[in-house]
């Protein structure tokens, strides 16, 4: 029998666990929300998931997501969950759902859309959640998830 060392991720004292991200999306999610220097960020990718086969997970020390950050995470996948941890306890679970509109978190891929020329808050009407299809409120272009650039 071979000896092996099992590395465990330290439990969060205060912060947020983003769980059930689609596999491979953790780095994208981190790019959306950024991270503050000095605080521990733990990223798990392609972890086994009983429900979905594989998943990604992020633990953010000393950080709770704001509404805009949650809206960006929601774009990535339908099963993502957020748990807010305070003093090692889960104090809240936040649903990560795409509403009827995605506002101010993504740019329109249409170069001749006015939102890419004047300083405007972008708005997209959600036509389909999974796979994501939205219509730009301004230029009316139908945009897929792959085309949507989250800012």
């Amino acid at each position, binding site marked *: 029998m071979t000896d092996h060392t099992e590395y465990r991720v330290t439990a969060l004292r205060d912060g947020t666990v983003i769980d059930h991200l689609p596999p491979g999306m953790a780095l994208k999610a981190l790019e959306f929300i950024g991270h503050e220097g000095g605080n521990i960020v733990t990223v798990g990718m392609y972890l086994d998931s009983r429900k979905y086969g594989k998943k990604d997970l992020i633990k953010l020390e000393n950080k709770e997501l704001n509404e805009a950050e949650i809206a960006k995470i929601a774009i990535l996948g339908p099963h993502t969950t957020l748990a807010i941890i305070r003093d090692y306890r889960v104090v809240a679970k936040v649903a990560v759902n795409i509403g009827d509109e995605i506002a101010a978190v993504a740019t329109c891929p*249409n170069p*001749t*859309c*006015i*939102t890419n*020329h*004047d*300083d*405007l808050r972008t708005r997209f009407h959600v036509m389909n959640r999974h796979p994501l299809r939205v219509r*730009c*409120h*301004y*230029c*009316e*272009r*139908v945009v897929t998830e792959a085309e949507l650039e989250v800012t």
Partner: protein
Amino acid sequence: MHELFKDIDQDRARSFKGRDIISPLDFEKDEILFLLDVARRFETFREPVLPGCILAALFFEPSTRTRLSFESAIQRLGGSVLGFADKGVSSVAKGETLYDTIRVVEAYCDAIVIRHPLEGSARVAAESTERPVINGGDGANQHPTQTLLDLYTIRKEKDRIDGLRIGFLGDLKYGRAVHSLVDTLCHFDVEMKLISPKTLRLPAQLREKLDSVGISFSEHEEILPAAAGLDILYTTRIQKERFPDLLDYERVKSVYQVDRTILPEVGEELTIMHPLPRVTEISPDLDDYPRAAYFRQSANGVTVRRALLALVLGGIL
């Protein structure tokens, strides 16, 4: 209330007062039919019901028909017009945002019509002011007043819209008149033939919409035999100004020329429409063909725009 409008739906007429006309997506079928009905009454209605009203016509892109027909419409209604027909003479040339332009102009007028090369500009204008804003064309997106006059023309020429077989010919990719009309025809029971070079096909999102609402359509590259048996052939200009690559334009610019030689093949019912201006896609030898409707279509633009202005400014309440 004039006698001619006594039997129209008064609540619906009131609902149009102050309303923006930006995209066909904003209108239900009943509202479109209501607009067409009011426009029909304006054929014989000549009273100046908007005395003292000022329309601001902000044309950031060249236009002849749309601009002049709006000017004619407001003047026939007893109002007047101010504005510009070239963005070079506006403060936009100095870097002003559209929002600021609209906030300034709203103090000078009662309603605004805007044409702008960027898609979504009319929506931004509408959200910048309480004044009613009418979209006179926003980039390659929508041209709702053209659509209303096209529908009006179709109904006037054919006495109906449902049940017609309608062909679209030419630039189906960039042509906003086509996009708006196809989008709006999704409310009706029609059959479509889409005739274009492969590079100028109707955008996928519109083809998907046709599929999703159950409109039967087929795509073709040649006019014949696709145009045989159609009720309407809606021809369009290949628009040089919309091509990112001029070489692509050169390849397709003269690909379609409709002339009298097609008449024996297409059947006697074919009405030919065109939003104008035409270049070479319709031969002048068709102009005296009784069902060449494009000049009547253009003239209908004033009637429809008179009706629209009267509605959004409360002129027939």
